[in-house]
């Protein structure tokens, strides 16, 4: 049953390569994304999320065979990928394409990417996590760098960072395997007295995950790669690709922090690096003129908050932060992509009189900006609220200060955008250039920001204590 979820994306990807004029790749991709969506959200949703269990692939029982392990955090991310994937594909389908061949391959690679991301968060085996991580990275390189030479060069830097990170992950896996004789995370967590080589192996693995999730000293590849990626990819890539390593890191941390990992060190370093990311990302975002670059630096800052949540092992705050940030960044990147592709608006200064041109996208900017800054009715507020509460419980006032500062800095760079959108005079008469079909995924996700604000805390408290 659980294998069917990522498998539906992989099957869809194979069909996408074979697509022709009559049955286009876009239709196939959206159909299979819908199947995946139905598989994820069927029945009693909360009960599905609470399902726990291990599934051996190919009839082999877990310690010997490859294991898929279902638990609330991984399943939440699977549902998130399914949702963002579905709307991201709709968005990509609404952008007209130049060549048919590229189009088929684009949809096939996107489906492979989504399937790999779901499989990452389900697998309970270190080497499998490595393979899925590399598969998702390789697909991401291919769809990010295929359009322009600037995109190719920026993606090449991403590729170098991710390649080194992959080797580090493999070496860490080797150390753990050599010392414990197993790759299965559940089995590793039951080892009575793990030695030095297991904890150093996990230190390597965590470092590699930090490079892949672009936490501050390792963020160098992210701004250019996001800033130059083609419009079609903006739905899927910025919203979830860097979240998958974060989820894996969180899963490993929750499972092994008592014994196998030297977590005292990470408890100190992760919030410190997260604080660095928050401050550096926000300050750099204020400096940028290009809209995509602003959003990319803002992503670095928001991932800093995720790292803080992982550092203090706060389930609620981290999960809400990941979900809220994915949904918000999906809407923002898609709106920016639509403005750039159809209206040729690339910088802040060109945003003037957007409110008259496209009031819907302007509202999206306003709501998502408020959510990023953490203003109460929206989803971003609850992430910050839970993070602050659990760091107050641990008497860690440094983190409280960083989170409050992040709200202030976010308001700093977002008010610049909002000022240009809302408070500028209507100068030229411009007819609506943006097609109607593009609005649906953006508006839906933007309304999720509000709906999540109301329902997410309830859902998470239903999941609480079971993670």
């Amino acid at each position, binding site marked *: 049953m659980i294998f069917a979820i990522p498998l539906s994306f992989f099957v869809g990807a194979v069909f996408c390569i074979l697509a022709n004029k009559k049955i286009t790749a876009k239709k196939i991709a959206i159909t299979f994304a819908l199947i995946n969506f139905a598989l994820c959200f069927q029945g009693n949703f909360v009960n599905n999320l609470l399902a726990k269990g291990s599934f051996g692939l190919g009839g082999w029982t877990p310690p010997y065979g490859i294991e898929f392990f279902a638990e609330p955090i991984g399943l939440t991310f699977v549902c998130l990928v399914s949702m963002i994937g579905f709307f991201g594909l709709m968005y990509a389908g609404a952008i007209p394409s130049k060549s048919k061949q590229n189009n088929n391959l684009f949809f096939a690679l996107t489906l492979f990417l989504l399937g790999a991301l779901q499989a990452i968060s389900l697998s309970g085996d270190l080497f499998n996590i490595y393979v899925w991580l590399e598969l998702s990275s390789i697909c991401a390189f291919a769809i990010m760098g295929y359009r322009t*030479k600037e995109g190719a060069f920026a993606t090449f830097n991403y590729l170098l960072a991710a390649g080194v990170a992959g080797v580090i992950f493999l070496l860490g896996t080797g150390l753990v395997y050599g010392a414990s004789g197993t790759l299965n995370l559940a089995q590793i967590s039951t080892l009575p007295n793990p030695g030095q080589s297991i904890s150093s192996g996990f230190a390597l693995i965590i470092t590699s995950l930090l490079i892949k999730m672009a936490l501050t000293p390792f963020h160098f590849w992210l701004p250019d790669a996001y800033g130059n990626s083609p419009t079609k990819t903006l739905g899927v890539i910025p919203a979830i690709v860097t979240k998958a390593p974060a989820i894996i890191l969180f899963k490993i941390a929750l499972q092994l922090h008592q014994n196998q990992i030297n977590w005292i060190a990470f408890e100190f370093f992760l919030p410190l690096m997260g604080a660095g990311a928050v401050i550096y990302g926000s300050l750099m975002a204020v400096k940028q003129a290009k809209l995509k670059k602003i959003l990319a630096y803002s992503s670095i800052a928001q991932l800093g908050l995720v790292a803080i949540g992982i550092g203090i092992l706060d389930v609620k705050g981290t999960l809400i932060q990941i979900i809220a940030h994915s949904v918000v960044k999906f809407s923002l990147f898609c709106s920016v992509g639509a403005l750039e592709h159809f209206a040729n608006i690339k910088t802040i200064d060109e945003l003037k009189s957007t409110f008259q041109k496209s009031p819907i996208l302007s509202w999206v900017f306003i709501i998502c900006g408020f959510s990023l800054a953490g203003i109460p009715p929206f989803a971003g507020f609850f992430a910050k609220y839970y993070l602050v509460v659990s760091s107050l419980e641990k008497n860690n006032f440094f983190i409280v200060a960083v989170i409050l500062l992040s709200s202030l800095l976010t308001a700093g760079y977002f008010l610049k955008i909002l000022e240009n959108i809302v408070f500028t005079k209507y100068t030229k008469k411009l007819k609506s250039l943006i097609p109607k079909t593009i609005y649906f995924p953006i508006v839906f996700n933007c309304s999720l920001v509000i709906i999540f604000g109301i329902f997410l805390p309830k859902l998470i408290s239903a999941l609480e204590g079971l993670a």
Partner: protein
Amino acid sequence: MELVSKFPYIANCALLILGLWGVLSQDNLFKKIIGINIMQSSAILFFINLAYLNDGRIPIDPKGETGYIAPLPHVLMLTAIVVGVAFTAVALSLLIKINKGYRSSKESVILEKEKSKL
């Protein structure tokens, strides 16, 4: 004897550092890809070293005797090699794109051109 048995791991370390040096220091992007490939080979050799046993037999043994080389790391490394090949293929295709666009595969030249455009 102690040092001799550790020699393969020292060689692994040397390969890893050589590869990392290549990625960090080389100006030519093609040489950076070669650096990553060297790093991947060092990781693969590390796994093979873990599995190695002096005077070990092949793991297909009808008599069920012990003292065979661990088969699992070899199998894992087959997958890792495939991942490495796919990675290299994507890297090379991106490099072709870069070389066509910028007429160079040297990082310094490309950065110079990017700067002059701004």
